[in-house]
């Protein structure tokens, strides 16, 4: 419940740093508030609100509340409508991005002193919001007929609430809004991971996720408070300006603050030393939620990291640049090596593999951010372009995995053997998605997305990182291709070994299981997007060459 209000709270909190930033550091906050009441001659301190600019996250948050309330009044057979409501709300939020595409709005700006806004709709915001809302949209499609065993009202409410936080985050331009948005995005996610009642694995996954995430938040908040203490502002652009000349006494404090904030975000992005929660969480969570976390959850972490590094701490580029480069190398290596070592016949090995692969992909996503420290902010565009490609393709892969898990609840990699024989189109789609992730033609978009990341690294003079990434791409190819190849194998032998494990399965096998429409729609949408992008990669790669801020 608190999470839902968080979105509103986020906008409310956006007011408070405004006045607080006006007096000099150390100036009493109470005095500022009192002053705002007393001084009538000063320009109004009430910040104006551009409702259109904040419409996408707001609409999502409102829809979350509506769904929660409607759940109370809907009879059980009609709970399905809630899902369609969520779908509509997300589609509407996506549509609301269209008038914002110029990327020139900002709101909750300071009315006095320097020009700084808490909520900005620039190109970066629009693109990430589109990614996040689109990802949530596809997640809803994936879960539409998966929710029968789950509490529908809570599920949709939590999902929408999390999506609203995720949509708020890329627009946030002060640390308080950033942290609040991050928490609004993650708190419902814990509940979503653990929503399978009575499932021990689900609860364990939720607990693991919760603990690691809360530690990250605590560390990050500590860092944020240090930064605030040393600079006296929460607005990112202001921090950037003031970090340059911090009083020498506070220098250590500022440095510690920057480091702790970055460590917090590294947790959120599941970068290498902080990645251990990912596989268990993905495996324990309902499959659509795993898909959601792998795409939207990552996007949240990354956009936060980008905002903090590039917008707020550019003067510490010599610190976070090398650190992120090392993290990137470590993350991709750890993810790929672990993915290669997956045993194919282990239960849920498919999701586990996708989880490790998402860790590895996070490593690639970090590369351009690290490169931005060495050359220019435009490198960030490579991360955005890569994230867009990854979102489409990874959600597609999860959609096919969801389809397969209908007939094979074990969801082992061996269950995919011979998928082409039973479901040729799903197999072709999955093969395409995997090759996109691997970066091999015919997954042209995957290839070129990798090329932009490579070129960002080469451009920034990070030759060693490019080489590490090259080696990783080859390692990753091993498991992606093995999976792809198994899709087209003859399914002989597999039925005999799989049947005894799952008691009720053999009965269902002879008659062909009809794929549910929402799932098919999700696969078709992602596959169409992937193929279109492969034909015209410019659609996402154009972000790679321009400044998004």
């Amino acid at each position: 419940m608190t999470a839902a209000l968080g979105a509103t709270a986020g906008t409310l909190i956006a007011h408070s740093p405004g006045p607080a930033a006006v007096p000099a550091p150390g100036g009493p906050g109470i005095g500022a508030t009192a002053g705002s009441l007393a001084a009538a001659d000063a320009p109004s301190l009430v910040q104006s609100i551009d409702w259109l600019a904040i419409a996408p996250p707001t609409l999502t948050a409102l829809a979350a509340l509506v769904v929660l309330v409607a759940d109370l009044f809907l009879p059980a057979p009609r709970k399905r409508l809630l899902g369609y409501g969520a779908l509509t709300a997300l589609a509407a939020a996506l549509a609301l991005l269209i008038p914002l595409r110029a990327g020139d709005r900002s709101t909750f700006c300071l009315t006095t002193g320097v020009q700084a806004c808490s909520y900005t709709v620039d190109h970066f915001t629009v693109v990430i919001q589109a990614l996040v809302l689109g990802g949530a949209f596809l997640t809803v499609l994936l879960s539409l007929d998966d929710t029968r065993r789950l509490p529908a009202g809570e599920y949709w409410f939590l999902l929408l609430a999390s999506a609203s936080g995720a949509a708020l985050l890329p627009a946030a331009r002060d640390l308080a809004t950033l942290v609040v948005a991050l928490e609004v995005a993650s708190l419902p996610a814990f509940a979503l991971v653990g929503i399978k009642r009575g499932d021990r694995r689900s609860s364990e996954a939720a607990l693991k996720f919760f603990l690691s995430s809360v530690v990250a938040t605590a560390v990050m908040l500590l860092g944020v408070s240090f930064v605030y203490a040393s600079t006296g502002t929460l607005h990112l652009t202001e921090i950037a300006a003031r970090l340059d000349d911090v009083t020498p006494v506070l220098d250590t404090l500022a440095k510690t603050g920057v480091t702790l904030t970055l460590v917090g975000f590294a947790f959120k992005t599941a970068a290498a030393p902080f990645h251990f929660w990912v596989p268990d969480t993905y495996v324990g969570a309902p499959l659509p939620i795993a898909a959601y976390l792998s795409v939207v959850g990552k996007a949240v972490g990354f956009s936060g990291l980008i905002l903090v590094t590039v917008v707020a701490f550019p003067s510490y580029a010599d610190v976070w640049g090398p650190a992120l480069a090392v993290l990137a190398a470590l993350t991709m290596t750890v993810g790929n090596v672990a993915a290669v070592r997956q045993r194919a016949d282990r239960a849920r090995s498919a999701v586990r593999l996708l989880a490790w692969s998402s860790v590895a992909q996070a490593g690639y996503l970090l590369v351009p951010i690290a490169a931005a420290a060495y050359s220019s902010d435009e490198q960030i565009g490579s991360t955005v372009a890569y994230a867009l490609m990854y979102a489409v393709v990874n959600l597609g892969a999860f959609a096919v995995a969801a389809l397969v898990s209908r007939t094979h609840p074990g969801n082992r990699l061996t269950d995919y053997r011979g998928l082409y024989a039973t479901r040729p189109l799903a197999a072709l789609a999955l093969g395409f998605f995997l090759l996109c992730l691997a970066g091999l033609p015919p997954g042209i978009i995957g290839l070129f997305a990798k090329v932009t990341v490579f070129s960002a690294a080469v451009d920034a003079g990070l030759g060693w990182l490019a080489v590490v990434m090259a080696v990783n791409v080859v390692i990753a190819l091993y498991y992606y291709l093995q999976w792809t190849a198994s899709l087209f194998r003859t399914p002989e032998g597999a039925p005999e070994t799989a049947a005894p494990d799952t008691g009720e399965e053999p009965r269902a096998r002879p008659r062909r299981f009809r794929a549910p429409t929402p799932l098919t729609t999700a696969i078709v949408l992602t596959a169409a997007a992937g193929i279109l992008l492969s034909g015209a990669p410019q659609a996402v790669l154009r972000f790679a060459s321009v400044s998004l801020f």
Partner: protein
Amino acid sequence: MTVIDISPSVMQFLLAFIVVGPLLGAVAALLPAPPGLKGRNPDQAVLRHGVTVTGAVLIAAIVLAVGFDHDHPATMQATTDISWIPALDVRIHLGIDGISLPLLVLTALLTFLCALYSYFKPPAGPSPKAFVALVLLLESGTLATFAVLDLLLFFLAFEMVLIPMYFLINRWGGDQRQAAAWKFILYTLLGSVVMLLGLLLVGLKSGTFDMVALATDNGRGLTTSVQVIAVLAIGLGLAVKTPMWPLHSWLPDAHTAAPTVGSVLLAGVLLKMGTYGFVRILLPAAPDGMRTFAPYLAAFAVVGIVYGSLACLALARTGAKGDLKRLIAYSSVGHMGFVLLGIATMTPTGVNGALFANIAHGLITGLLFFLVGAVKDRYGTADLDTLAGATGAALYGRAPRLGALLAFAAVASLGLPGLAGFWGEMLTLFGAYSPAEGLSRPAFRTFMAIGAFGTLLTAAYMLIVVRRVCMGEHALPARTTPATTPTPSAASAPDAPQAPAAPGTPQPPAATPAPAASPTSGPLQAPTTPGTLQAPPTPGAPQAPPAPQLADVQPYEAAAWTPLVALTVLAGLWPAVLLGLTDPAVQKLLSGGKS
């Protein structure tokens, strides 16, 4: 000297069609056949579709070659240049000159012949639908590699062939196919990812990904250190593909496991992509870097020549259980060594020789793999000892035309003057005699001497192969007793060579005792069922039949092989056809587009 004047826009369209046509054909192959084109059965229809598409592409390639302005082979012709991904500065820039035209035609020809061959002799394995789609995808990728003039597009095309080849080996291959397919794709991919880094380095540092612009710059936009790194990275990727000596170990496995058609395309076309990259990208765009590495490249090349020959000699020994396909794969390592040596000289003579050897190798080794595939189909094994030991009078006696063709291809491969193999080797050795300025003369003369010694070794093993396979072992080992034949394990065909016509091995229709079915009517009715189903008749068969006549060259085989034979002779007798095309283009590339 344009044979026929074809308007530039038509040429443009033809080249675009050559690249895109197979791609569309591959997609169409996966769709159900439209009414009216259903054929006798779906398999036949899709195989026919493959023949149609590759045939159309071949015709387009020939028309393109005819319309090519042979007076100006150094200029890019039939060019298309449109922006595709402005963000990465990737342009769809297509064009052909004297260097790429022969390779383009060779690719179209070999793929067509492969499609034709598969039409009459469908590959043993899963449905031919995917097979045709993969072959067409492969064709599209290779043709695109030779036609594109943008570094990143080149990389894309280079990678595009990997997946189809992987599946061709993995699904339609022989023993050990999965391991071989893995090895193939992992080696090539490791190489090509490193190559991508090099290409990006060149592109970012020089500010353009356009090969024509890079060639015109001739490395002026790049510092020597950048060139050295770029050549190292790009060269590594290309060297894996070529393959250069220490990086070759994927090739024998891949060839041994690949189906006949896969081997032909792998040897005839895919290997050329590596050497083409050396000539098209590295020589003109990074000459300083090339000069640094040329001696090492040449050294590796001659080691490859000698190593390949020695490996072949070892395989050809009696009792070595050498696989004939493996042997030819090793001979490819040697032949590509000559190509690399020619490139490493950095002289027009050497590079022309390299390009000539490239084409010659494509023709001859393509033919050899076809023939070995045919032999393997007839005997059920490509094991050299079995082929030599069992057959008494061997191929000459049992399938004289096949034997003669094999001997012809072997002799062409060893570089007999008058056949295609000769000129390439001779020119590269010439080139090595006086390498480009700045390269050590004594070193290259040493390389030349070693290379020349390699030709002797090549002759040695090729003649041994011809003697053993075509003429048979002179001292026949004692005939195995008939008792071994009727044992239930009829599947172990190599042990029962005296019954080569046993139904356990897939036979062309005419090999059956009653050759009623004419080859044109019944390729698809040919017994392709596994040997186990037909095994029961074996014990009942006449005890130890006196080595029956093997099916000699079938009409469809003749159709697939004749063009290769004819072109081998033509290129051998009239090398100017090719050299006239390549020489001006090579001169221009080496001099930085000034000539």
